[in-house]
């Protein structure tokens, strides 16, 4: 009988298996299993190790990440972080926001830097304890998201005004990603996941111009060392799935913003594995056990060609996901037939929360509404919110700005009523202005000014 790890590796090698593999992305959520805060689990090797072992025991994964923290590299490179108890930290300052330069290659992270000693230690311990049966994921911050962390929101202006600078900065960030991969591979990781959520926030033309060569180079660098590669993106990356495939990762992981059935037709064309995309908040965080079982079974059933498919949450699981919900997904994976039987008559109960929308036709001043997963924890949302904040700081009392985080039930209801399809999005006076494209200062300013 195959071990869970062997099942996953067969799928990553594009072979047909009887069993669908499952990879729960339990980042800071792992800490919740013992009541540790996010900051505890990301700064204390013993607590992290203990939590990951519990994830392994309870959720029976084929693969699991060690840490899901896209700010780890940014912190080493001088970004100040804002820590939260129930989510990964977010980047609060950008060292290159005032100094438009390319950092010296000598600043590329090394084993002793930042929190790397903790991460590398836990990677080795996990390899020793569960590495035989579980495939271990080393997650690195993708070059574009790292470049955004270092430069801040101005990178979206630089992409138009100073292409050369952006290319050079992304090249530096790619070298950082290579160095991180090398350290993680040495510590025993089986899969290197390049997590670049901001990729979904640019056009496919910009992807090809700025990112394609770097990603292709990075994946080939990792593959040469005999481990698998996975390309994580969140947000509505539909338009970029094809160009992502062309960079030749072994796998692409997407969230609920992308229709996985449609996306799989593209990834299958390139013989690339696709992973995803259980909704993080509406199902995993707020749903019931039955909701989770039903979603997982339906998803498995909707995938016609079972090759090249991994069942996974859309991204890093929210901290407060009820343990029972993740176990429910695990059961749906390992005992699909019996779970299908359990939920065959189950109809999800829709919660009716009444939300009052503003009177958009009679506003006193422009109203900018930003719909996010959570700008404090999701990098794409951070920069979408950042773009809106830049304008708010400039226009001050002349506009109203509000963020609706999808992590709250009342905001899920608001999204439904407004017809919000993709996160993050910006609505101006009730109309969709930007969906999964982070606008530069000028473009957003124009959109507001054009109202009058």
């Amino acid at each position, binding site marked *: 009988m195959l071990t869970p790890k062997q099942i996953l590796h067969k799928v990553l090698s594009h072979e047909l298996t009887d069993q669908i593999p499952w990879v729960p992305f339990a980042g800071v959520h792992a800490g919740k299993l013992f009541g540790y805060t996010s900051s505890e689990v990301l700064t204390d090797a013993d607590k992290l190790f203990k939590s990951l072992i519990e994830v392994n025991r309870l959720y029976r994964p084929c693969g699991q990440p060690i840490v899901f923290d896209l700010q780890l590299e940014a912190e080493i490179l*001088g970004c100040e972080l804002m820590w939260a108890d129930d989510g990964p930290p977010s980047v609060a300052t950008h060292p290159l926001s005032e100094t438009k*330069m390319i950092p010296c290659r*000598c*600043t590329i992270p*090394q084993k002793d830097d*930042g929190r790397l000693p903790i991460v590398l230690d836990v990677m080795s311990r996990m390899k020793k304890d569960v590495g035989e049966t579980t495939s271990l994921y080393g997650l690195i911050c993708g070059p574009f998201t790292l470049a955004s962390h270092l430069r801040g929101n101005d990178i979206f202006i630089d992409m138009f005004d100073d292409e050369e600078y952006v290319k050079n900065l992304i090249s530096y960030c790619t070298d950082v990603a290579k160095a991180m991969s090398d350290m993680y591979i040495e510590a025993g990781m089986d899969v290197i996941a390049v997590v670049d959520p901001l990729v979904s926030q640019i056009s496919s033309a910009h992807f090809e111009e700025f990112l394609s060569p770097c990603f292709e180079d990075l994946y080939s660098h990792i593959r040469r060392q005999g481990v698998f590669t996975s390309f994580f993106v969140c947000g509505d990356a539909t338009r970029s799935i094809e160009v992502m495939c062309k960079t030749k990762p072994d796998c692409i992981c997407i969230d609920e913003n992308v229709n996985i059935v449609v996306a799989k037709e593209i990834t299958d064309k390139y013989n690339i594995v696709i992973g995803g995309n259980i909704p993080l908040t509406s199902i995993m965080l707020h749903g019931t056990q039955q909701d989770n079982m039903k979603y997982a079974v339906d998803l498995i059933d909707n995938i016609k060609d079972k090759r090249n498919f991994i069942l996974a949450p859309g991204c890093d699981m929210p901290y407060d996901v009820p343990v029972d919900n993740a176990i429910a997904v695990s059961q749906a994976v390992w005992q699909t037939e019996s779970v299908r039987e359990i939920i065959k008559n189950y109809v999800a109960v829709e919660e009716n929360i009444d939300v009052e929308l503003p009177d958009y036709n009679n506003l006193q001043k422009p109203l900018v509404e930003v719909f996010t997963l959570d700008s404090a924890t999701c990098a794409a949302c951070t920069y979408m919110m950042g773009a809106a904040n830049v304008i708010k700081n400039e226009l001050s009392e002349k506009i109203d700005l509000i963020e609706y985080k999808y992590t709250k039930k009342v905001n899920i209801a608001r999204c439904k009523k407004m017809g919000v399809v993709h996160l993050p999005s910006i609505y101006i006076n009730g109309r969709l202005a930007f969906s999964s494209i982070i606008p530069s200062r000028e473009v957003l300013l124009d959109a507001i000014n054009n109202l009058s």
Partner: protein
Amino acid sequence: MEVILTEFYLISGFLGSGKTTFLKQLISFFKDKKVALVINEFGKQGIDGLLLAELSHSMREVNNGSIFCACRLEQFVTTLQELTLNVPEIIIVEASGLSDPTIIKKVVKERDVFSEINYRGNICIIDSKTFPKVIKTALVCKKQLLCADIVLLNKTDLVNGKEKSEVISLIRSEKPNVTLFETSYGIIPADMEKVINVLNIDTESVSVNIIKDITLQKYLLKLTDNIDIDTLKNFLNSFINETYRIKGFVKIKNALNYVDSVQNSLKIEPFDGIVNDEAVQNIVILSGNGMKTAEAIKAACYKYPYIVLSIE
């Protein structure tokens, strides 16, 4: 048999704080002992190394093209191992002004290969005048202070009583119990013995979270041989505001001069030591967070078109 351990002193501090001046006094304090020096500088142009070359029994530089010392760690370790073969009584390391010395402290204290070394402590030199400004812009500045066993508050002659109290409060807010001595021109008012004895205590264990300062910038200008002092001053002053430090040797009318600027104050003074030909007419410029150095140098080169032969 009693094993005599080599005493190890680390000198740190931001660019231009007065490390080299202090180092010269420390070496003369140990004049009857066998002293080995390690100088960590930026790039191939070891200017401090040239200034210190004659003062100790053996001196090594950890340079070789890289700016910040943490990335030359293995080279530093090798250098230190080589030095210990000659069993010096004292090893003094001057960390670069842009480096985080924490890593040096950690290596010397924790690596088994240095069991014959007695780590005495890290003396951090702080410039009273510029510290309040640089701690806000340069990430390493705070790291240097946090890793200090002793602080020498230097250049107290350049600040008034109120400014001095403020800088002391600033230091105490970051590192409340650090032993602090006040100095001017790097000269210890009491005797050096008193300072050194403070370091007899076992220094605290090292807990590090190494963070890089990616905003640090370095430029090397190769200047023409045909230059007069006024033009050189005007040229350098035109971008001095966008730098932390300017250093180098320039020959003007066949006489060698040492060029040095710290925080906008430029000095060009005759130098009677011996300098390698390669180092002459080279100016090293260091800058960091928020400084538009490249643009400022470019504008200066435009205004004074025949001075600079090349920029690296």
